[in-house]
């Protein structure tokens, strides 16, 4: 693990990604303390205040401080997207490993069905799921987890097929271990590394999907300061105050860049021969 971290720190993407990640982590943990104002304090005299002291990122249509809303909003944007991705990835990893373990017709049937589910675009699947479950942050996160799972299952299966041929798996079968034991205790730990790399890259995607759902009014609900929702609410005022839109947009982009860099850095760190 420390070895992987060292190698991660040797790639430029890894360094940049980790730096951005620490900033985001700080903001998620201490955003409420760091925020100069309360994110919900309205000030009608100070509506649409331009960026500069005392509102460094300006004020929005209700006179709320944009910087404070961003700092507090990180907590309603990032952790849910991360949790959604990793739970979806875990479910996908189990399905993919199981498929590779079973092999033959079962493998074929599972793979074809996964391919079929993937024919529905992620956003559309998430939209239908959210409209079924009801709008809200948690349901949006659940929808994202479900839409991430099939593609992660496919990635995991391709790795697990090689693991399936290893001697320790054959030994476990020869010992007469049950299928569940072999999938969970013998195979899953050995497919974990590539799955984590893939999942890290998908976090970027999940952050964007989550913000998009909120933007469409199906994710976080007002008065939350989720970043996608902030863009959506500010859209009507883009003439008067473009900064209300630009600030959360950049925050979303920075978060997605962070996880993309981190995922690429991890990939390079774990495949030293691959010099892309």
């Amino acid at each position: 693990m420390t070895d992987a971290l060292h190698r991660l720190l040797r790639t430029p993407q890894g360094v940049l990604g980790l730096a951005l990640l620490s900033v985001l982590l700080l903001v998620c943990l201490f955003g409420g303390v760091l925020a100069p104002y309360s994110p919900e304090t309205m000030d009608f005299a100070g509506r649409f205040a331009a960026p500069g002291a005392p509102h460094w990122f300006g004020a929005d249509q209700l006179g709320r401080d944009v910087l404070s809303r961003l700092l507090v909003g990180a907590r309603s944007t990032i952790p849910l997207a991360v949790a959604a991705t990793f739970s979806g990835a875990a479910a996908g990893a189990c399905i993919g490993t199981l498929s590779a373990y079973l092999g033959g017709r079962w493998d074929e049937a599972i793979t074809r069905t996964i391919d079929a589910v993937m024919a529905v675009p992620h956003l559309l699947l998430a939209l239908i799921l959210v409209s079924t479950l009801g709008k809200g942050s948690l349901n949006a996160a659940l929808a994202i987890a479900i839409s991430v799972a099939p593609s992660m299952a496919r990635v995991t299966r391709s790795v697990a097929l090689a693991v399936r041929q290893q001697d320790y798996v054959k030994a476990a079968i020869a010992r007469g271990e049950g299928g569940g034991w072999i999938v969970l205790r013998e195979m899953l730990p050995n497919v974990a590394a590539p799955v984590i790399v893939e999942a890290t890259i998908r976090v970027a995607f999940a952050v964007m999907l989550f913000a998009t759902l909120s933007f469409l009014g199906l994710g976080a609900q007002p008065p939350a300061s989720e970043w996608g929702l902030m863009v959506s609410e500010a859209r009507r005022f883009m003439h008067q105050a473009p900064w209300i839109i630009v600030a959360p947009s950049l925050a979303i982009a920075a978060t997605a860049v962070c996880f993309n860099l981190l995922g690429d850095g991890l990939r390079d760190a774990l495949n030293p021969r691959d010099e892309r």
Partner: protein
Amino acid sequence: MAWLLRRLLTVLYTLLVVSILVFGLTQILPADAAVTLLGENATPEALAAVRQRLGLGDPAWLQYWHWLSALLQGDFGTSMRTDQPVGPAMFTALGRSLMLGGCSLVLMLLIAVPLGILAALRRGKATDVAASLVSYLGVSLPEFVTATLLLIVIADHFQLLPATGYVAPSENLVESIRHLILPVLTVSLILVAHVSRMVRSETIDVLNSDYIRAARLKGLPPRIVLLRHVLRNALLPTITIVALDVGYLLGGIIVVEEIFAIPGIGRQIIVAITTRDLPSIQAGAVIMAATYAIANTLADIAYVMVDRRIRYD
């Protein structure tokens, strides 16, 4: 030929799974179709009559069977919102979406392929670093952010192009193109970023291969090596990547059509979801999945036709 048949069977299986998935999901929508249709104030007798007519009392599998067999005869049902047949409305909308998607794909390829190859050839130099920075930013901007930023700068600040709306090409070609520019730019940006990175890494793989070294060592001019050997081998895998990205493109189209008020299939689906118009949600989702499955099949066929080394059967 056996391969092609198998491929077509896969498409059919895909559509079957998608239809079950979509029907199953919309079945548990917490909405009583009869109430949606008649409004909250309808009499119990009227509601019962509608439930009878729509077969809402039947078991789920029977409802699915009725829906599927109608679907196979080209009947997508009747919209609960407009009381019009869903099929024609959806296919008209699909036409507009395909125009948006097609233009975006072409623009994306025109930018992404040269950019990726250039970055690979100048690997590690300033051009490569700049291209990869742009692509990191590109894949990190969701469509609604790109669209909003483009609207602020180009439509609002400089007033160069109209902000929203749709004009049919048959009506006024120039206006139609002017209305399409911003949506097309939005949809293609994220794809340019993704595909150019893929083209770059494929090209680097090919440049490092033995056959390129052999071609160079036997004294072929660099231009010929690039055009005859590198390009062809690097671009083949790109076909598959682009086909898989069509799914992403379709998702992007949903958001972009909503923002730019383009009456395409994405907007139809959003309206259907917000008004809980079940037949429209079902039809929209099935048509989108079918589009994706067909695009991928065409890409596979193209791949086999271009690359004679590949034999699937």
